[in-house]
């Protein structure tokens, strides 16, 4: 039991040391995703081409020369049979653990938002999104300062939706009764966010624009929002 605890402490230490570089500039899920994707694409392409080439070779090479010929497939000895099982299994497992380690690394980036991240609350409805900022301002499009990490805390008021920004490579389901999160580092310019969990009639019709503005433009936009929200707030208070 103590052994297990030591092991777990070790794992926690590894994760903690991972979060030490969490505040650095390059700490960003989207380029991390692209990098891992390219590596995996190479991995699976190599495997696919090797197996595919061998298949094509055999399909042409081992055509029957004469209809009464029979195959001459090898009859394996016990040692050969075991080797042909264990060695490939070990190779497959090695690739599995190699990919797992890579995947876990990126996963830690995805799941550990930087501490200075700005939080926005996302509420999903059939069939639109609502964004609430830390100062209480609620909008129907997501405007964020470019370059600064943003965490979305998400929940749904009806059925399950899923908030997906293809450009920033993030997605997580948005459910009633639970709060889920994603974080990303927005760039200047527009990106599309859309629903990716089937939610009924207008499932395909809830795209929303994610606008990345420079800090100055963002501040100006926020002041504008507050100004237009203030009379409403005053009216509802009176």
């Amino acid at each position: 039991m103590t052994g297990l605890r030591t092991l777990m402490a070790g794992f926690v230490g590894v994760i903690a040391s991972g979060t030490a570089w969490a505040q650095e500039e390059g700490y960003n899920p989207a380029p991390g995703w692209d990098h891992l994707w390219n590596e995996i694409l190479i991995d699976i392409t190599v495997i696919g081409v090797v197996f595919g080439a061998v298949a094509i070779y055999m399909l042409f090479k081992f055509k029957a020369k004469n209809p009464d010929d029979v195959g001459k497939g090898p009859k394996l000895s016990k040692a050969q049979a075991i080797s042909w099982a264990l060695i490939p299994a070990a190779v497959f497992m090695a690739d599995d653990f190699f990919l797992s380690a890579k995947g876990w690394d990126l996963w830690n980036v995805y799941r550990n938002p930087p501490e200075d991240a700005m939080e926005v609350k996302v509420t999903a409805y059939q069939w639109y999104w609502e964004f609430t900022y830390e100062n209480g301002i609620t909008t129907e499009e997501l405007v964020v300062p470019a370059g600064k990490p943003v965490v979305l805390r998400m929940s749904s008021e009806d059925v399950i939706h899923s908030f997906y920004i293809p450009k920033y490579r993030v997605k997580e389901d948005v459910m009633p009764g639970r709060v889920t999160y994603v974080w990303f580092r927005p760039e200047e310019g527009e990106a599309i966010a859309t629903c990716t969990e089937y939610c009924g009639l207008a499932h395909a019709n809830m795209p929303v624009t994610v606008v990345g503005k420079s800090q100055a433009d963002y501040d100006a936009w926020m002041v504008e929002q507050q100004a237009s929200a203030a009379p409403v707030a005053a009216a509802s208070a009176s």
Partner: protein
Amino acid sequence: MTAQTATAETTGFNWKEWVFTTDHKRIGVLYLIGSMAAFVVAGIMALLIRIEQSTVGPTITDDPAQYNTWLYFHGAAMILAFLIPGLTGFAANYFLPLMIGAKDVAFPRINAFSIWLFYAAIVLALLTFVIPDSPDVMWTGYPPYSVTTTGNTAFYVFTVHLLGFSSILGAVNFLITVIYMRAPGMGWNQLNVFVWTTVAAFAIQLVFIPVLAAAVTMLLFDKYLGTHFFDAAAGGDVLLYQNLFWFYSHPAVYVIFLPAVGILFEVFASMGKNRIFNYKACVYGGICGICLITGEVWVHHLYVAGMPDWLRIGQMVTTLLISVPVGLIVLSMWGTLWRASITYNVAMLYAASCLFLVLLGGLTGIPLALTAVTIHLSETSFVHAHFHFIMALFSAFALFAGIYYWFPKMTGRTADGPLAVFGFWANTIGVNVTFWPLFIVGVEGMPRRYWDYEMFPQFEPYHQVATVGAMIIAVGMTATILNWIISAVRGPKAGENPWKSKSLEWTHCPSPPGPGNFPQDVVLPEGWTPYDYDKK
């Protein structure tokens, strides 16, 4: 030899012989007809879906509800009413007893009950098109949507109940048949690989179907009886359903995959006149290995569903480890072609193209096994293309290989004419034209289950190519099915064993086999295997 074991030279069609039959072969044929009927209707739905997607904005319907019904029917019918009954219902029913030298299954009347449950389910599913507020819950039926929708979720639930009940009865029946009714002297290491894969598929069905049945029953209770299993506002949990659903539905992938693999081994061995490469590694490492891990990987369907991080990481590792048993099976499959003596016919063409489909579908599953990569890819066309290659296309092509391979056994005729070859090439080209563009737009972020994609107009050309592919498949499948019907009636007569196979269903019984299957009791020579081609 008694009158009972005469060959099936029928004296004309008698419907009672089919409706009241308890003969596993006739039940197999009934499964084939029913599952192909489901395939045709669900295939037409696929074509409508693809046509709708060919332009941004409304193409043939401006009603998303209509489109969602097509999606629902296509998914539910293809998986539950075509692939599973086609592979385990048809292929196992007809050929498993023949391969083990049994006169029938252990419980023929229960078998007859199963087939009519299956037909009742098909009728229930077809009612989708005539009832008001047809089900629109996809084949997954996730709550709260399936509970709050105005669609008739009950039709979905009862269809699953009927098919599940039918499959459980089939599973008990076939497991007992293989355990107790093998020909004297036939040991476990002498079984056809197809028998092993079928046993594995039925074992999985028996363990996991009750979980699905429970999950959909809870849906029914939530929607119609006011319970709150999945209602977060009343203390329920929306994720409970997804966990239960995928606890069955991931293993269900192997219920489809394994018998498909089994058929391919039979075709490769018979057409290549070769022994199975490393049989024991394939059976005990590959097939049994899949059975062992299959219940530990379902969370990869919930990678973006807010599951605890440690669970997602743990199941990322188990999911990747599936590549070990699958890799052993693939290695045996490739090895079975090594130094083979291959005779090409349409069955072998389909089987050969499956080698490439399994690579495409299997390898594109590797990025999806990684939680971090799936965050971007889940619920996109990439997933859609991946599971079509591995589950839909691979398994359907394997089933078609099996139909061509066993056609002479079932009808006494071959079906390898030019129409069959044309159908094969159209299908092969069609599936690649359809699904490669979907991989590409998937990586770019095209979501699944979208009636319209006005926010991504740049994907339109890819969708158009995919739609052309779907039309090529439609032409190919029309030729294929027409060819089967024509060949069954007028195809050239095949001998008893046209492929010179060593498997029991070819060597010991006539084509087609009569009641009781075997004219003489099956006696196996010492050291017999279904693959001993090098013995004279």
